[in-house]
């Protein structure tokens, strides 16, 4: 039993990092309609930045700031230099652009930090919290808490505020939104900066828990996408989907094989897609 609990907690921890990527993907998709497969790189870059700064003697809490800022700044560059210029392009071209950007970031990571994985110090030190038979490290609690807090913040901004409503209008029909006086570009930029900042912060806090290396970003993006789809592509759903995906993966690794964590993710996506039409039908029937 305690084994199962331990596995479940490990799953929730890794799931929190997926949830944060999913959150970034959902927000960026809300304003641009693009699934941003470069979102995972913001986390990776946030992790690397924190690793370098803490190695240079910065306190962890202070290193979070540039890590988050770097994510936000790069996301702004992505919007300004790529997505805005390609707003009339087809879906596949846009998706491919985010992949190419991810490869570009990977290339920069290889040059700056090499090919070996890095780790870094914890933000919250101290003895693990014991609850029943379950031992939870304080850092993993911090990561889960970060996911919950940022989800609540995003919920307030995206789902509740007038700005969030305007963002949805921008994605729905940019021209109509422009005609009602909405500053489309400002909102797109705002959405992407929010997504990038979340990514950078998430990567910094996740650094001591999971190693960071240059090849991790795209896989992280895929997991984030699957988590977002699993959660129904909403802000709250991203958290639920991320945590669920993390637990599914942890159970697969523990009870099947550690080589099959990607298989679990893939099967979840396939299952969601195959079940999609039925879910839609059920929703239509209950009038939701």
């Amino acid at each position, binding site marked *: 039993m305690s084994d199962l609990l331990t596995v479940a907690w490990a799953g929730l921890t890794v799931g929190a990092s997926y949830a944060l990527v999913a959150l970034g993907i959902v927000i960026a998709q809300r304003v641009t309609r693009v*699934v941003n497969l470069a979102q995972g790189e913001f986390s990776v870059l946030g992790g690397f930045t924190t690793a370098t700064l803490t190695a240079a003697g910065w306190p962890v809490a202070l290193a979070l700031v540039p890590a988050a800022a770097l994510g936000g700044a790069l996301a702004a560059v992505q919007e300004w*230099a*790529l997505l805005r*210029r*390609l707003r009339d*392009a*087809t*879906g*596949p*071209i846009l*998706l*491919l*652009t985010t*992949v*190419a*950007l*991810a*490869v*570009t*970031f*990977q*290339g*920069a990571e*290889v*040059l700056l930090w090499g090919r070996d994985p890095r780790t870094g110090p914890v933000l919250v030190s101290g003895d693990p919290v014991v609850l029943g038979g379950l031992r939870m490290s304080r850092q993993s609690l911090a990561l889960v808490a970060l996911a919950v807090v940022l989800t609540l913040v995003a919920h307030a901004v995206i789902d509740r505020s007038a700005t969030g409503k305007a963002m949805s209008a921008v994605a729905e029909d940019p021209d109509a939104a422009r005609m009602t006086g909405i500053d489309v570009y400002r909102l797109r930029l705002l959405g992407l900066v929010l997504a990038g900042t979340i990514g950078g912060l998430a990567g910094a806090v996740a650094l001591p828990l999971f190693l960071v290396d240059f*090849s991790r970003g*795209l*896989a992280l993006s*895929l997991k984030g*996408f*699957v988590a977002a789809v699993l959660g129904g592509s909403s802000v709250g759903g991203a958290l639920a989907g991320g945590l669920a995906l993390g637990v599914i993966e942890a159970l697969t690794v523990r009870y099947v*094989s550690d*080589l*099959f964590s*990607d*298989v679990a*993710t*893939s*099967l979840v*996506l*396939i299952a969601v*897609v*195959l079940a*999609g039409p039925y879910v839609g039908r059920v929703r239509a029937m209950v009038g939701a």
Partner: protein
Amino acid sequence: MSARHRWAAAIALAAVLAWPLQASSFWLGLSLTVTTYAIAAVGLDLVYGYGGMLSLGHAAFFGIGAYTVAIGSRETELPGVVLLAGACLLAAVGALVVGLVALRTTGYYFSLLTLAAALIVASVIKGVDWTGGPSGVGGVDRNLLGTGELTVASMYVIAVAAVLGGIGFVRSLRRSRQGRALAALRVNPALAAAVGVDVLRLKLGTFVLGCAFTGLGGGLFAQSLAYVSPEFVGLTQSIQFLVMVVIGGMATGWGALAGAVVVRGIPEAVQSLRDWQLLALGLLTLVVLVRFRLGVVGTVEAWVRRRAASVSAGPTAARPGPAVPTTPAVGSDEVAGDGSGAAAADAGAAPADGPWERPAAGSAPLLDVSGLERRFGGVTALSGVDLQVTPGQIHALIGPNGAGKTTFINLVTGVDRPTAGRIRWRDRDITREPPHRRARLGMARTFQLVALCPELTVAENLALGAYHRTRTGVLRGGTRLLARGEERAVHERVLGVLDRLGLAHLADRRPDEIPVGQRRLVEVGRALMADAELLLLDEPAAGLNETETNELARLLRDIRAEGRSILLVEHDMRLVMDISDVVTVLDFGVPLRTGTPDEVARDEQVVAAYLGVEA
């Protein structure tokens, strides 16, 4: 490109391809590897460049091919060609499974499902013992024919033959019936379905074929390197294939080869740049996507095309310029049956010994719609619509914007499904039939927002209309010789229809090079190519000037005189009242009145709802 240029290019290419045969073994080996990558990339070009299906997991099929050959070579004594055939076959089976799931979805889901499928393949290859796990399989032999090991040079010649064959195939496909269908599919799936393309089947077939070819590349790759390992199946490999196709130029065939040289050849040749490789590839891809969407080969092709156009037609004629009326302007009193019109009509409608036939006459309704309703969530776009189209009549459907006219056409053609009601075609219930089947029954449509393929010429856009009257499949279309007879029949018919529309001088122009009014005519021409019994025209006169509108009126009368029916959605009241036999007025999705133009024009309700405002 002139014949002399063509020969020069062919000789230069032959020299480049033959160069490795006398170079050092390093260069020969590298050229062989790059060529096998190019074969795989040609397969991806077919899937993504031509088919528009962004596969993010193409390395899976490369890996299936490579491992089939590697494990086959370890476990059996079969000659290499048999193993290569097995590689194609297994890659095709894998693609069929992936395609049957992933092609049910659209947009991002397809791409991410291919990625998910590739991760499963990679995990299985890494996790299972008989694939050698992380260390892979070595000692792959090159006993291709069962006569002993082939030399690297022989392997290279075979690989070059395969890649040239593949490039020839996809380039030939581009100019064939299914190539045009794929072009339509990329622009607008509704357009493809409207001309009778079974969208899902064509996509699946293209996907499977492209993956099989990639599997062949994987098999040859295993033989060229003599070993395989999981790194060639991973995400990075999939992305590299995509980068090859994008940098080289999508849907060009040659682009895959050029891309393979840039992406794999240069980094291998200059090992010291290994750490810069990812950054350079990423940046290069971004630059191509943002600034040179056509890629290397596509940009060259566009340049050659522009030059050819300016050389052959002179600099002034090459530009779009104002519309040049080829038929003298005529007054609105011009009637159908006038000498020149009838002659032109004959030219267009003449059944060229092929599959075209005249519609059967009869007085029972051709199209019988009853109780049609369409709700979008809480909004009712159409309700209680009863409408019959009689053979040989022009039936106009009018009403203010948002009255549901386009929705009606979408429901009749099957792009959209009604929430209630029946649609019958000659006593046959077609309410549940998919759009391509309805097109085959004999209906053809135009679109309110002109839907023409920008990469196809005007003549090719017309040829698209004959899709369901012709047979050539993907395999025959890729080997041009086999499809010649049918292509010639289609081409003759295209020339006839172009003549009839007065657009013959624009045959080789692209849609964005001609005025908007003429683009609408091209759409009508595409519908004529289908030899349909019912033409559904969605605002064909929008954007036409008075002369052009009069020409259109004469054309529509001609079409009616052939016994065909037209469902005309139009805002130009003069045109509607002038040529229609029956008019139905829709208002907020509800039919207000059906009658002759005179009856409708006198109806007070109609005048209040619509005509009064308009006139």
